[in-house]
């Protein structure tokens, strides 16, 4: 037992002496949360809008003011000719051009109808749609307000309630995904690299020749990363809560338990990779490409699974992060207990056991 602890201590020392890697290991979750919380939003803001007002009457001017006071849009200049639209888009100085037809107010008063063209640079289709939707909303509500002298009867009032995320914070989506990503990164990537490192430097043979049993070696290598990952999981939850007010509605213990399960899974994957990789480089790339990429793309982290083509949706079923994210979202944001997530938890448990067995088996084979 003593020699096992001695070994674990050595592993800890290795890690803590490498200040740079340590900095990144702890700094990464923090930076990621900030990035996803503030930077990577699918919302739009400060969209540059050019105005071509062919009427310049009171209504069109007021409508323009309303657009820029909505908080989503900023002015990008006033146009006078059709050609300027293309120029504006080409130079990237505006995303939308609003065109008020000539005689706007006059048409409204006389014919009761007038038109506005909303021309968007749709090279970014997503923002283009959002910009259109919001612009339309602003304009429509402005017109309803000037219509309001006539209070229409037989109105259907709409009340919308936002469940789980009343203030519509973008970051709610990301915290569970970030946990899946970072825990996978630290546990799997680091474990695979550290084991492969010993192989590359030849010290693995030394270890195997020592009284340490193979399973002790693996456990020893893996233990520090269990702690690190756990600390990171806590950091993410804490940061999410303190900085972005992302709550933990359900049981924190259940949440931590699931995290431990996921960490174990990621660690086994790391060990599995290390049995196939000959050098550190190979281990790194296998982890990054085999684990990181699918985690980001196919786990429902950023891109909703429902939108993917059938084949990919089917593929996501074998991605552990996918199940983990569902469980975390349920516990953290909806506050559900085991009753709702037993299916996903069972799947995750099954996967974990499978990977542990596979890793152990492969490791023993490698030894022979």
């Amino acid at each position: 037992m003593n020699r096992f602890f001695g070994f674990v201590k050595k592993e800890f020392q290795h890690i803590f002496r490498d200040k740079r890697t340590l900095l990144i290991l702890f700094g990464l979750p923090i930076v990621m949360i900030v990035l996803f919380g503030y930077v990577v939003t699918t919302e739009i803001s400060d969209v540059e809008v050019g105005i071509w007002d062919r009427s310049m009457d009171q209504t069109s001017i007021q409508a323009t003011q309303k657009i820029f006071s909505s908080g989503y849009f900023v002015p990008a200049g006033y146009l006078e000719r059709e050609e300027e639209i293309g120029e504006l888009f080409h130079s990237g100085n505006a995303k939308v051009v609003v065109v008020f037809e000539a005689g706007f107010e006059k048409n409204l008063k006389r014919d009761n109808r007038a038109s506005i063209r909303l021309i968007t640079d749709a090279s970014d289709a997503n923002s283009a749609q959002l910009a259109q939707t919001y612009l339309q909303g602003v304009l429509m509500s402005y017109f309803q307000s000037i219509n309001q002298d006539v209070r229409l009867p037989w109105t259907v009032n709409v009340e919308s309630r936002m469940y789980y995320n009343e203030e519509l914070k973008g970051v709610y989506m990301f915290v569970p995904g970030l946990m899946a990503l970072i825990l996978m990164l630290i546990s799997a990537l680091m474990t695979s690299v550290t084991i492969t490192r010993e192989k590359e430097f030849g010290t693995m043979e030394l270890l195997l020749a020592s009284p340490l049993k193979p399973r002790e070696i693996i456990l020893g290598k893996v233990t520090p990363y269990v702690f690190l990952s756990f600390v990171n999981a806590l950091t993410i939850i804490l940061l999410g809560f303190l900085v972005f007010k992302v709550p933990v509605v359900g049981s924190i213990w259940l949440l931590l338990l699931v995290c431990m399960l996921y960490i174990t899974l990621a660690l086994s994957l790391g060990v599995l990779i290390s049995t196939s990789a000959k050098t550190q480089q190979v281990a790194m790339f296998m982890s990054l490409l085999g684990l990181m990429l699918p985690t980001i793309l196919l786990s429902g982290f950023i891109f909703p699974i429902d939108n993917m083509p059938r084949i990919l949706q089917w593929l996501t079923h074998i991605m552990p992060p996918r199940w983990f994210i569902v469980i975390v979202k349920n516990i953290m944001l909806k506050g559900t207990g085991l009753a709702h997530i037993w299916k996903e938890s069972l799947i995750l448990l099954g996967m974990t056991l499978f990977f542990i067995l596979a890793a152990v088996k492969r490791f023993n084979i490698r030894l022979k």
Partner: protein
Amino acid sequence: MRILLTLLTKEFKQIFRNKVMIPIIFVVPVVQMILLTYAASLEMKGIQMVVVDQDLSQASRLLVSGFSGSPFFDLVHSTTSYPEAESMLTSDRADVILHIQNDFEKRLYVEQQTDLQFIINAINATEAGLINAYSTQIVQEYNSQIRAEWFGLNDSGGMKLEIKPSYWYNPLLDYKIYMFTGILVILVTLIGMILTALNLVREKEMGTTEQINVTPIRKYQFIVAKLLPFWIIALFELAFGLLVGKLLYDLPMVGSLGLLFLFTCVYILVVLGIGLFLSTISNTQQQLMFVVFFFMLTFILMSGVFTPAESMPNWAQKINLVNPAAYFMRVIRMILLKGSEFRDISREFFSLLVYAILILSLAVTNYRKTT
């Protein structure tokens, strides 16, 4: 000159003998290009709605038909039990509940106004916003319809506003193209930064640097020999990516490809410089890998690969001034999708040029100091 050629021969041989290299240059990009572009869609389709209609009147049925007839909504279930609907929301079998109470129609006739509720799963805030917008729009149309048809009130007692949207450069609103350009940026950056840095540290770890120092090889020759291969490979990767894009997705190439490649040449210089610099401050491959990975991830996320850089908060946009990927992301989309010309991207071009000179000087100076 001859020394340079000799070194380059060695570098290329070593690169291609490295077993991870070939899959990274060819296989990974293709897989990424396919997976990412198909997976990465943020559009809204098939919003899953469960209807709690406790009124079951003509009015309520008409409203519901407005939703079932809409291409945006998928009516997955209809019930009179609110708790049942709520549990569907909780278990993610529905995105939104339409709740119509049992006095819906009555109130319309008696009080001349009535209410209904949408309960939306707002974990994905943007989605929720759009769901709200679409639902409200349908209700408004319904409202106008019943005012006109049932109560004879012509809505055009008020003014009617016609809004005509038009989408330039991408009339079909194809998300894939946008995503694809992002991937091209990622690929070029990956090769330029990570592979270069790894290669440099590997030399350090192998211990052959001392042997090199004794020979007549000048430092600048050594550095050029280390960087040039990846510069070439990165450019090749861009070409390869463009080809795949054209074949698989009919990627538009509205602007000048020559201009794009010119810009990319400068971009890769910046990225190589960063990779070189990072390798001078790392001792082991493991360390370097993490530092480089960290920078790359941050640069790429902040560059606007998934979401527009203009929508980021001010402080983030300031950081983007030193984020070369942000420049590249912008320019590649401008050239490929809009056909922007040199004068449109001249600001970005010259900024990157200055950046390249600065970072390469810094990196080379540091390299000299540490070897």
